[in-house]
Every structure is written in structure tokens, then in C-alpha cells.
């Protein structure tokens, strides 16, 4: 689908066809005080050479040579140039939402393969590529559970990503959904005793993240048993998708909401990312968005189509399963290419490297006498430590050493002051980890 600018003559023709004298008249129903009367304050057009110069200057502002130990929902992973080469193809980069199977077989096949990969990774039966990111996918999963159970109370683990919880609360605010939080236990996992106490027959869903925001792996199967005991559904959010290369998939969950950024999408400025929603075949009609399906054409050849789009907003309007979703085709394509390049063994190896390096880093940091491990439960590539002083001040020192320090947990959890969430991925080298440990020791040794 192409977007072409309209010439003044064409504009006049269109206005004449609808019986308006001018564009101004077309907007006359908008109250005058809300209308913009002056020109937009935009800089004038630039020549090609000026545009190139502009972007060179912006690129030069990027920091180079830094090592990062920051994760907390966005992860640094190896990416292949192959992914970018395919993403940059015009057929993928500039094409619009694939409504017409006749002209978008490539895009539909890529989405179909993405869905298949997501099902294999999450242990679920059906997945789509219609979510913006992990946070909206988590909320849509909760809304699905609300529709399926007809219940309106939701229990969310306090150890779910703080921004995911914020998004959920924003959706819930005016929809009558009651969101309550369940505390974490001393080992960093969801407090199952508190969960059992809060779980009544009116709860639609229990929401947990694994690995959770503290990096800790939750016992998904046990949580599913508890939730199902009162007829609630278990929603599992996965913010670090690479974990699925090593951790058991959340197959016992009724709905899995995932952030696929770790698969070939650069952290950038925090997006665009790719959300995933995966569930059971029997719940497919309550899934937001649409599916790509595989079929055969009239000559028996394999082909791809959009299917189950009948509950989307262009058909169902306000009754649509979701009015806040889209087709994340390009980001889903990046994830598909990335996973295809890695393969099953490659992903397993990548995940294993995350585990090994993160555990090595923890051991190195614990050699500093004043550093303590905060939670005992098993973790993937993030772990929480407690420092003897403000993490913010320590991070300022680390930055001078070209180290982007760990996430300051106190900003999201007031009870966790002086707690730092450290992330180590396969991109971090042994010498970088050792340099981080030395720099942290130095920062802690300095007089306050």
C-alpha cells in the first residue's frame, strides 16, 4: 500500500466531491479555540547533504566504549547484521498491515513463523504478533482472563515489572477491574501463602513474571495449581525471552505475555519492541488481535492468510477484543530472523552463557565484603544485591569508569533502598565483569 501526497488540483477535486469549499470548512465542526491557527513550528526542509550531516552529528553524540550492567526489562544481546539486512528490505520495511493475502505472502509467512516459534518457546498452543510490548501484552492477557472467567478481581505479583503493573493499572482505572498486589517472599519469589489468602472465587487471574523483576525464576507449575484451585487463570509474563532457551517453558500458564525484544531488537530508546500473547487453542476467540494462518490455495499450493480478524476493531468497533493493539510485523520479523539464525542449539547456548556469566558475576561481586545477595532463589541473568550505600551514588562513580551501573531498585521499590539489580548477558566478557567488580569495590571503599 502506498501513501502518495496529493497535488493542490487533486485536493480541490476531493473537496468538490464531498461538497466542501475548503479544507478549513472541512474542519469547521472543531471548536475554534482548539484549532491551530499558526503554522507548525518546524524547521525548514534540508538538502540531502544537510540531512546526512545532521545524522552524523547526532550519531557522534552516542556514547561508545561503555559496558552495561543494566537490564530491568530491556536487554543487551548479540544481534546479527543478517537481521538488519532483511529488515531493511522495502517489501518488509515500508509495507502496511497485511490485509490482502494476495499481495503480502512474505509478511504473512513471517508472522506465521513467528507465531509458531512463540508457541514452541512458551509451551502454548496459539500465539500472535499483535501486541506492542510485554506490558500491553500482560494487560491484554488479564483482560482476556476477565472475559473468560466473568470475574473482575486480579492478583498481580509485586515482583512483576513495575512498568507492566503501571500499564495494567492505567487500563484498569476506568474499566472497573480491581487490581491487587501480592507481596514477594524473603527469597524473592511470589509469597504463595499471601497468594492463597488473597485468592477467592472472584479472582479472574493471578499474574506472575518469570524470571521476575528481581531476576528470580518463579515456580510456574505450583502457581498454576494454586490459581486453578479457585477457578482463576494464571497469566505468566516473560520480560527476558532468552531465558526460555534454558528455563522450563511456562506451559502450565493459561496465558503467556511476553516481551520479544531480546530476540534481535536493539534496546534503542526503549522501543519499538514486540509483544507476544500466547494461550490455549480453546481461548483463541478471546485473544486480542489477529492470527496469520497457513492454508492451501485453489491449486493446492501452500499459502498464508490472515484469520480470525472478525473480532478486531475495524469490524467489531467498541465490542472488539482489543482497541489497543496492532500488527507488530516488522519487530516480529526481526525476532523470527534472529531465532532462525540462532536455531534451537544456538538459543540454548546463548541462554546457558547468560546463566554462567551472571553466576560468575555474582560470585565476583560477593567477594567484596560489604556486598550481600538479597534473594536466594534461582535466577537467570539478573540478580539482586544489597550495597552498604546508595546505588545512585555508586552508579555515578561507575559511570566515570565507563560502566553503566545496575538498576536502582529503590526507585520502584521504596523498601529496597541500597538494592541493585545487576544484569549480565552473553555480550559481557569476563574481563568486563572483573573490571566492574574492581570499580564497585573502589566506589564502596571511598569515604562518603
Amino acid at each position, binding site marked *: 500500500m502506498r501513501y502518495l501526497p496529493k497535488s493542490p488540483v487533486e485536493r480541490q477535486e476531493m473537496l468538490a466531491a464531498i461538497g466542501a469549499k475548503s479544507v478549513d470548512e472541512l474542519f469547521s465542526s472543531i471548536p475554534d479555540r482548539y484549532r491551530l491557527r499558526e503554522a507548525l513550528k518546524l524547521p525548514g526542509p534540508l538538502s540531502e547533504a544537510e540531512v546526512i550531516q545532521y545524522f552524523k552529528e547526532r550519531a557522534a553524540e552516542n556514547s561508545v566504549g561503555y559496558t552495561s550492567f543494566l537490564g530491568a526489562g530491556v536487554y543487551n544481546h548479540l544481534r546479527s547484521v543478517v537481521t538488519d539486512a532483511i529488515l531493511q528490505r522495502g517489501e518488509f520495511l515500508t509495507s502496511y498491515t497485511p490485509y490482502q493475502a494476495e499481495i503480502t505472502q512474505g509478511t504473512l509467512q513471517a508472522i506465521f513463523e513467528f507465531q509458531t516459534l512463540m508457541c514452541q518457546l512458551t509451551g502454548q498452543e496459539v500465539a500472535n504478533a499483535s501486541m506492542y510490548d510485554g506490558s500491553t501484552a500482560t494487560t491484554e492477557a488479564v483482560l482476556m482472563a476477565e472475559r473468560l472467567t466473568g470475574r473482575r478481581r486480579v492478583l498481580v505479583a509485586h515482583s512483576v515489572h513495575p512498568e507492566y503493573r503501571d500499564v495494567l493499572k492505567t487500563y484498569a482505572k476506568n474499566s472497573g477491574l480491581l487490581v491487587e498486589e501480592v507481596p514477594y517472599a524473603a527469597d524473592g519469589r511470589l509469597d504463595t501463602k499471601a497468594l492463597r489468602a488473597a485468592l477467592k472465587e472472584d479472582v479472574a487471574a493471578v499474574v506472575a513474571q518469570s524470571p521476575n523483576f528481581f531476576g528470580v525464576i518463579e515456580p510456574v507449575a505450583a502457581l498454576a495449581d494454586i490459581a486453578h484451585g479457585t477457578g482463576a487463570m494464571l497469566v505468566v509474563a516473560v520480560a527476558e525471552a532468552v531465558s526460555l532457551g534454558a528455563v522450563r517453558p511456562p506451559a502450565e500458564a493459561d496465558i503467556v505475555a511476553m516481551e520479544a525484544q531480546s530476540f534481535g531488537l536493539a534496546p534503542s530508546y526503549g522501543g519499538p519492541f514486540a509483544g507476544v500473547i500466547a494461550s490455549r487453542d480453546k481461548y483463541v*476467540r478471546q485473544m486480542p488481535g489477529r492470527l496469520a494462518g497457513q492454508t492451501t490455495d485453489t491449486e493446492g499450493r501452500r499459502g498464508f492468510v490472515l484469520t480470525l480478524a*472478525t*473480532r478486531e476493531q475495524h*469490524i*467489531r468497533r467498541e*465490542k472488539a477484543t482489543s482497541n489497543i493493539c496492532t500488527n507488530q510485523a516488522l519487530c516480529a520479523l526481526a525476532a523470527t530472523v534472529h531465532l532462525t539464525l540462532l536455531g534451537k542449539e544456538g538459543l540454548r547456548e546463548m541462554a546457558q552463557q547468560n546463566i554462567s556469566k551472571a553466576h560468575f558475576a555474582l560470585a565476583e561481586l560477593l567477594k567484596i565484603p560489604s556486598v550481600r545477595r538479597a534473594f536466594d532463589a534461582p535466577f537467570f541473568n539478573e540478580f539482586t544485591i544489597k550495597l552498604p550505600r546508595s546505588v545512585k551514588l555508586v552508579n555515578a562513580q561507575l559511570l566515570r569508569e565507563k560502566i553503566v551501573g545496575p538498576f536502582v531498585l529503590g526507585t520502584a521499590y521504596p523498601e529496597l533502598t541500597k538494592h541493585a539489580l545487576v544484569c549480565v548477558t552473553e555480550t559481557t566478557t569476563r574481563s568486563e565483569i572483573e573490571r566492574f567488580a574492581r570499580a564497585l569495590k573502589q566506589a564502596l571503599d571511598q569515604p562518603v
Partner: protein
Amino acid sequence: MAYPAQYRYTKEHEWIDLKGDVATVGITDYAQHELGDVVFVELPKVGSKTVAGKSFGTVESVKAVSEIYSPVAGEVIEVNNALQDAPEKINTDPHGAAWLIRIRVANPAEIASLMDAAAYEAYIADKTKEASA
């Protein structure tokens, strides 16, 4: 397809067959024709309440999902579970085998305000004319 004379009809194209205080409800032949091939039906739970003019379920065809509105107020006492496996019956026998739900009607006199077969046929004849105009 003929519209049974003993049924009453709504403007949203449901039919209702009242016997005593139990009413059987379905969608009309006109409705199934407008929808096209039906692939899925969503019906309420037995014991749930219906409100006249309010949706109690949906019918999904290959091109759209439509609400089904209850002609009367009452309580659902039976749903046609056979449609879960054979929703296409709605296309082949909308006025018979493809009934949707049975309701214990709160006030049987309520159906007096609905159209009889002749009025409904005139109503859809008008619609068809509008569509082809």
C-alpha cells in the same frame, strides 16, 4: 424459506416461539443469509438472566461477529449445545434445529409488542429494497 406463523420476530432478526412461559429463541433465515457461513456460536450459561433488547451471545461468520439480542426478559433454562460442533446448522435450519436458547419468560405478555410473520416479512422486504436502491 418460510417464516413460521406461530413465531414472533424482532427488528434485530431474532425469532421467538413461546409455549406457556417457555420461549425458544433463534435467528431468522434473513439474518443467517446476511451473515454468511456461520463458524462459531457463543451462548450464555444456563441460569443466566436475559434482558429484552440486550445481547446474550454472538454468532460468528467468516466475515463478521454479530450480537444476538434477547427478545424478552427471563432466565436461560437450556442452550443448544449441538451448535458448538455444528454451527453451520444455523445456515441450513435457522428456524428449527438451530434454535439457540430456551428462556423461562418473566412476562409472557411482553412478546405482544414483537412483529408477527407477516409484519416481519414486510419489514425485511423493505430492507432488501433499501439495500438494492
